[in-house]
């Protein structure tokens, strides 16, 4: 491979032959069904870079809306060489024994974790998957770790309650879950929580030094970064308890456990 070919790797969507660029799109336009609506759909397809594009299905939904399915070739090229491998886990995955050992060695006491599903969200399956002994995907949850003390506040917990409990328990980390995303509920609630903790621990230099580590989780945080929300870390779909426990050790007890991952 020459230096040149190594530095670019142009790819396009693949329908049934290399480079054909074919994609499928569907959407609703708030206009009555008809030729003009179809023209508007093609207009949108063109704006999205589809050329040529075919409206393969147009269905009136009542007098004011039309649903479209469009197939077409996108003109966009992706230089795959310029898409870096996203950073993987920046810390090693530890076993329960390693985690317990690290906590005992570094803290001399149990690590305190307070978890909740905040706001009006009542979806506890996700946070329970991380916290409950029962766990997730065959892994035991944080309650199973001898050196981690878990307080699971359950669902629909107000930020004030969470803050009070975190203080009362001397939480090292606060874990919040958000599943409902309609009208960006998950983002608003998490930001509100982060702001409350920031206000409550104004002098704290950062997580572990005064204020608890703030961890958010849920299936649809993929459009934002932790910094956007004011938290220390976000976990998404499919997270397993060991990932979370290992992160806690990494973030809170930087000296311990590093480099011993499996």
């Amino acid at each position: 491979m020459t230096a040149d070919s190594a530095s670019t790797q142009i790819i396009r969507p693949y329908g049934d032959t290399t480079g054909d660029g074919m994609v499928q799109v569907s959407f609703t336009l708030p206009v009555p069904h008809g030729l003009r609506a179809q023209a508007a759909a093609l207009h949108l397809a063109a704006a999205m870079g589809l050329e040529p594009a075919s409206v393969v299905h147009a269905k009136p939904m009542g007098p004011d809306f039309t649903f479209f399915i469009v197939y077409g070739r996108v003109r966009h090229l992706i230089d795959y060489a310029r898409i870096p491998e996203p950073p993987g886990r920046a810390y090693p995955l530890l076993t329960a024994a390693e985690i317990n050992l690290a906590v005992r060695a570094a803290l001399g006491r149990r690590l305190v974790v307070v978890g909740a599903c905040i706001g009006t969200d009542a979806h506890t399956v996700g946070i329970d998957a991380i916290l409950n002994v029962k766990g997730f995907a065959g892994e035991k949850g944080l309650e199973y770790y001898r050196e981690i003390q878990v307080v699971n506040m359950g669902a629909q917990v107000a930020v004030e309650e969470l803050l009070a409990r975190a203080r009362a328990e001397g939480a090292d980390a606060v874990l919040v879950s958000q599943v409902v995303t309609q009208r960006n509920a998950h983002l608003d609630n998490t930001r509100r929580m982060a702001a409350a903790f920031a206000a409550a621990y104004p002098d704290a230099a950062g997580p572990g030094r005064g204020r608890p580590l703030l961890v958010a989780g849920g299936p649809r945080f993929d459009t934002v970064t932790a910094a956007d929300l004011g938290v220390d870390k976000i976990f998404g779909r499919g997270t397993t308890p060991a990932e979370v426990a290992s992160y806690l050790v990494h973030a809170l007890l930087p000296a311990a456990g590093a480099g011993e991952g499996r």
Partner: protein
Amino acid sequence: MSKLGLDPATAARARRLAARAAEPIIEMARTHTTMSVERALLRLAGLSGADPGGMPWVNHLAEAVRAQVGIEHGVALPVWDALLTGPHGGLRELAEAAAAGRVVFRLPEGADAAAARRAAGRAAEAGLARIDARRAERDRLLREVGDPPHPWIYLIVATGDIHEDIPQAQAAAREGADVVAVIRSTGQSLLDYVPEGATREGYAGTYATQENFRLMRAALDEVSAELGRYVRLTNYASGLCMPEIATLAGLERLDMMLNDCMYGIVFRDINPRRTFIDQRFSRQIHARAGIVINTGEDNYLTTADAVEAAHTVIVSQLLNERFAHEAGLADAQLGLGHAFEIDPALPDSFRLELAHAQLVRELFPHAPLKYMPPTRHMGGNVFAGYLLDAFFNLAGMMTGQSIILIGMMTEGIHTPWLADRDLALENVRYVRAAAGRLAEDFAPRPDGFIAQRARRVLAESVELLERICDDGLLHAIADGTFGVTCRPPDGGRGLDGVAERADGYYNPAIELLDGRPSAHHDAEVPA
């Protein structure tokens, strides 16, 4: 008759056990009241509206009574006594004055008590008469406009804004929905008051308010007339205000209400006693209003495994049935819930679903069963989702379900979009037309996989009911029997709103409803 070869004696035994398990709870409900039960009486008597901050007048009034005389005697006597003896032109003025701290309540005695009792009784009777009128109106519309045959197609709207909900609900009706449910904003169930007015600010659902009920029912009446088919409206009598919402539903001619004996406990962490007491009153109202209730067993299968926990669904249905019958609901009003939630990766998953669905069908032959679509195993692959929903629709047809909630291919992603709903309706329309009477040709092999599975689930249900009879239902709930969620009897929200009825407790609504079971209405309730 039974396609599954069920033993009628086993079913009868299960019912006897359920009645025994329910008895202590019923006794508790008959001997306690709650803030919401008392407020419901005030609503029935015509008190509505809220202060400028949005707190309803019924809350102000009931709170004032509680603070001064307690609610263990019921609010009726103190309130109507205050009306009869004070300067207040009516309930609303009384409530405003009470909110301002300008009313002194007492528990009347002797002739005063008798007078207050008569006045309260008349007010409650008038309220029930309004509910009866709405019921008669429904019966008339069903006759005049037309009542769609089972299975009814049930669709959810969830924009959070009643003014966006309305056109979407009308569109859904035009595309074939027989029932429209407006789901509630997250958080409403934990409010200890019912919000007021038309609302536009719900999260993933729209607030249940009297005005929203009225607006939506009117919109659906309009579209019903247009379509020549009465489109039913559903909401949720659930959460801390279950009795009041049931009352509002009766007053605004809602047709079905989600109303489960344990959902609030398990999934909203509402106190078990509060829930069971509220539940009894709300069901008495539903019975009177000719409203079909929908129970929530489907929810268990979102937290518990649908195969392992299949028998908990049956047990809960039997309990819901017992509580409902006791509260005066007819079989035709029992929209018992269950769901298509078995992991599609399991071998024979569809046949397991058929076993469960047919079992429920055979155990409750006269109930308008409500069948819920897959939710838990719906991911981001919308094509796979569309497919799974189709098999759900098919299972519904093959096992003769009555009310079919239409699944959305985007269940794993977002609340339904307009187009999701339209595609979902195309899905069910195809399955219904193509496979409509396939139930005729569905004959599980005697002693085959399906029949054996159904019988096994029934046997497990009997075992579990025996355990519940021994330990008590509250204990079973505390143990995580339902939805693998543990809820102790004294935990959860709303226990402070519960009071044991004192001697001389008086609530004219309960008196009227207890005295006159609505069983004679049965004939009028379409099944």
